[in-house]
């Protein structure tokens, strides 16, 4: 019984905490102020392939009868 109550208490606390996150838009604030700027910095500094170097060879008609 005590264990059940303890589990119930923990779940209730988690539920309340999640509600607080929801109600005070903490998920949005976290993503906006912390996560997104961090990721944008990462993408801006990522080494990327120069796609302008992609070759431009002549192609056969893909529907040509063999």
């Amino acid at each position: 019984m005590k264990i059940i109550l303890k589990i119930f208490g923990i779940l209730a606390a988690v539920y309340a905490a999640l509600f607080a996150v929801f109600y005070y838009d903490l998920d949005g604030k976290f993503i906006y102020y912390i996560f997104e700027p961090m990721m944008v910095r990462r993408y801006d500094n990522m080494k990327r392939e120069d796609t302008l170097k992609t070759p431009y060879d002549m192609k056969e008609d893909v529907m040509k009868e063999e």
Partner: protein
Amino acid sequence: MKDLKHIIEFEDLLQEAYNAYVRRGKEDGLRALGYTCYFMPEVLLDLPGCFSVRLRAPRSGSPDIATYYMSNRTCLYGRCLLERALEGGFNFLDAQMATETCTVTCRFQEHLQLMDIIQNPDFFCEFTDVPFKKNENSIDHYEKQLKAHVLDKLEEHFGIDTSDEALLKAIEEHNEVCRLIREIGSYRKLDHPTITGTEFSIIQLVTQVCPKYLIIDQLREIAEDLKTREPDDKPAYKCRVVLTGSEEDDPYFVQLIEECGALVVADRHCYGSIPGREEIVVGENETPLRAIARHYLETSMCPRFMEQHTMRERKKFLADVAREYKADGIVICQMKFCEYWSYERTIDTLIMPRDFGIPVCSIEKEYVNNAVGQLRTRFQAFVESLEFKKIQGGASK
């Protein structure tokens, strides 16, 4: 070089859509059929009883009313055509043979349908669907469309003879014009060309905007004249260029390029002759209409074509034209707000120098040529760069 025969007369004809020869054609009882696009086969509109008029709006100013209807964020060519129509400049047309090939000219032609603009009780505007590929399915489709929306309509409205015999005759006459234009144009391939790009542009345009039976004699004379025309001892140009791009119906633009020292030796653009003046060949067991449909699809280099190999072949075609005409560079000229050529120009500007070693001058311009100073600067810089390249190339040898 001494003046080419008939060139001044031809230049005069280009000052108005309803020029003297169009007027004569109408007086001779022929039907004037307007069109805007290569995908509307000119040869069909030149059947006995009618003549084709590829629409231009020369000496356009500010198309204020057309801008109300089509906003200022659409191609000025389409707007100027609408403005000219609203001004009454196209009232001579008996029909507009329309295609939904590019959005803006399509909208212009839809305005002709929606609003009572052309003051001609016989006028009608008929749309033809044009495929995006060159395969058999597309040729079949195109043939059906031309039959239903061009030939049948001409017969229904104007009693035009659209029989195979009439088509063959039209093809024969069309081919003669093509042969003459190609012959005239071939002088641009010479090491010392005996015709300028401006002159050629005037001649080519006249064949598109006037009844051909009224200019055929002049064309023959010009071709004859060129056989003996001598180039200048000291050529005025410093390099040779191909002009490619979207709609271009202003010979003074070509003149502007040539005044900057670049001879325009090939016209690979809408309203140009490459492609545009190849002879139509009617194959064995092929109807004339089928041959026409096949011809206009197979010869066209319009950026509207979507098949992968066709898209890629366009670049090679352009490079081949540059080599054939011994061009030092390519001027890619896009009409502002032209969607197709925005992308085609972007890729050509990157691929032509990188893969084919051909320098490119990439510009955007308006139909009404206001930025002459800026364009002149660009062309002069391009010419200088080509000269420099030649010098460097000579020095390294």
